[in-house]
């Protein structure tokens, strides 16, 4: 039997997307991708709710989607556990649930589309070793302490460089994903540790901040910056790498296309089963490939 209660070539389906928050640029990028791509499906109406980085808010927004009886629920949980009960309520009520970027606990969801924070960060670590063959001081600008992406990316990167004693992590400080805080913090780091050769940042904004800080003391050439998210567009990380400002960034995939494709299968094609997990591969953006990727990425 099909996954959705009502499916088929009906002319109107409502997709309710509960987004963790609109603050992080990555999030608004996801919104954008969805808004852009959903135009390819005239039957779909996309409604995005801003979870405002609050479990409480996001839970009640999901409940509202339930009240409204949306045809399918997209959700990027702000945190997994808090959203789990309400999501499974939705799922049990027969509304298909597609989770983006972060899984809820348990398995009450139709399928999961996303990347793997830890793996991506680990890959960044690997690349860091390549960047500094004969080692050196490394700094890390962490996200919002204790938020899961921050934790996963921090651990991942450390794991990535663990097997190379020549890379010394001399400073780790939180910048709460924020560019302005990144500038202040990294400026201070450069004072305290003038030999920093490379900085890994948990998101593109932090990387941009690190670049500004380095530039202010004329070190932007000597310090290798690795970002995360790899957002397209002139304000994104890919552009920054292409410009040669950063050493690299890792694309954290939005999975927007994949998610919409699943929605189509479920709602329009009345699919009876869809893949449970769709892992969208990350991509390492380096000066070599940056320009082409930047050109390719529609925005």
């Amino acid at each position, binding site marked *: 039997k099909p996954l959705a209660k009502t499916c088929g070539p009906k002319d109107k389906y409502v997709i309710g997307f509960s987004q963790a928050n*609109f603050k992080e640029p990555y999030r608004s990028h996801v919104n954008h991708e969805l808004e852009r791509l959903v135009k390819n499906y005239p039957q779909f109406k996309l*409604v*995005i709710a*801003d979870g405002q980085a609050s*479990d409480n808010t996001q839970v*009640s*927004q999901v409940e509202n989607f339930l009240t*409204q009886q949306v045809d399918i629920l997209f959700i990027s949980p702000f945190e997994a556990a*808090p959203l789990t009960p309400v999501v499974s309520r939705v799922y049990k009520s027969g509304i298909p649930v597609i989770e983006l970027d972060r899984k809820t*606990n348990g398995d009450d969801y139709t399928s999961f589309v996303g990347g793997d924070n830890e793996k991506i960060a680990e890959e960044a670590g690997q690349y860091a070793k390549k960047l500094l063959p004969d080692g050196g001081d490394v700094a890390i600008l962490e996200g919002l302490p204790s938020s899961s992406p921050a934790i996963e990316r921090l651990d991942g990167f450390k794991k990535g460089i663990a097997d190379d004693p020549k890379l010394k992590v001399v400073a780790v400080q939180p910048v709460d994903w924020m560019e302005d805080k990144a500038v202040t913090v990294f400026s201070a780091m450069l004072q305290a540790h003038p030999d920093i050769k490379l900085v890994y940042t948990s998101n593109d904004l932090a990387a941009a901040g690190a670049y500004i800080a380095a530039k202010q003391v004329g070190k932007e050439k000597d310090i290798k910056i690795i970002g995360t998210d790899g957002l397209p567009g002139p304000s994104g990380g890919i552009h920054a790498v292409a410009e040669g400002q950063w050493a690299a960034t890792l694309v954290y995939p939005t999975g927007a296309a994949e998610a919409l494709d699943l929605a189509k299968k479920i709602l329009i094609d009345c699919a009876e089963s869809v893949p449970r997990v769709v892992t969208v591969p990350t991509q390492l953006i380096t000066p070599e490939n940056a320009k082409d990727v930047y050109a390719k990425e529609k925005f």
Partner: protein
Amino acid sequence: MTNETATPSIGVSQADARPKLRPLDYVVRFQSLLGLILVIVGGIAFSPRRHGHILFLQPDNIANIVRSISETGILALGMTFVIIAAGIDLSVGAVLGLSSVLTATLLINAGWGLWTTLPLVLVCATLFGLVQGAISTRLHVQAFIVTLAGLQAARGLALIASGNVFININYGSGPGNAPPAFAILGERLFYNTFPVATLVFLVLAVIATFFLNHTRYGRYVFAVGGNERAARLSGIPVEWIKISVYGITGLCSGVAGIVHAGQFAFGSPTDGTGYELNAIAAVVIGGTDLFGGAGTMVGTIAGAVMLGALANVLQLNDVSAAMQLLATGAIIVAAAALQTFVGRRDVRSR
């Protein structure tokens, strides 16, 4: 003697011969509900319908609203005392976070039971509040600074307590599991219609209203906020009152933190970020004067519910995020203006 008592009463009976404004007074007593009424009426009017049913009034939807405001509501109850006493407490959100983390760690990592964990959390939260109150009162530092610092301190403590991670609360027996009883905070009672979190809020609301209006303590809070010198002259323990109200906010934050942990089976140092503003907003929209000395508990409750209902009806109508922000701003002001307009008779009481 007798005719003397008679003579002044001429003068004063003149003072009282003026139109008795009792009915208006009555409206005014409930002015703080007008905003809520406005929003509810609007909510019903604009609510989307599905085969005849008004979604806004669906039991599920109402349950959702009252649940979503239970935590800020609890915080607002305590905040009402503080603000009436002419203080302010910015730390409530952070203390909520701290409490939920403590609850989670003690239950999961330390493997304590509920009857040891919950009391301890409440005690800690209350003490935290009292300490802030004491510093602010004894060292004569403005409450704004002390509680802003308290906010930071609480978040710091939470990070330490949790070891910079968030903690999932999973139920079951044996180590690393919380007693399933705790899960009730996330559930609904009475045939799945009434969220337990809201029940907690209601119970506290009743208690808080009682204390504010029917105990000597409540009186003193008004007096201290309204005219500290007068209060002191009347032999009221001003210092103690000014300190204790922060104990109340602390306690409320503790309860809210436990409710948070229970609702979301989760404790994170960042829980409750920004809740303080919502709580204060609820209090102030409820007609309590930020300069102290005047306010009602029912107003605060109405204010909290209003904010929840407002957010809900906007989202039910698929209003875009940007528009939601604009509408929220506009309606909050409108509601407040309506209330003060009705309430404005006596210029002297600003």
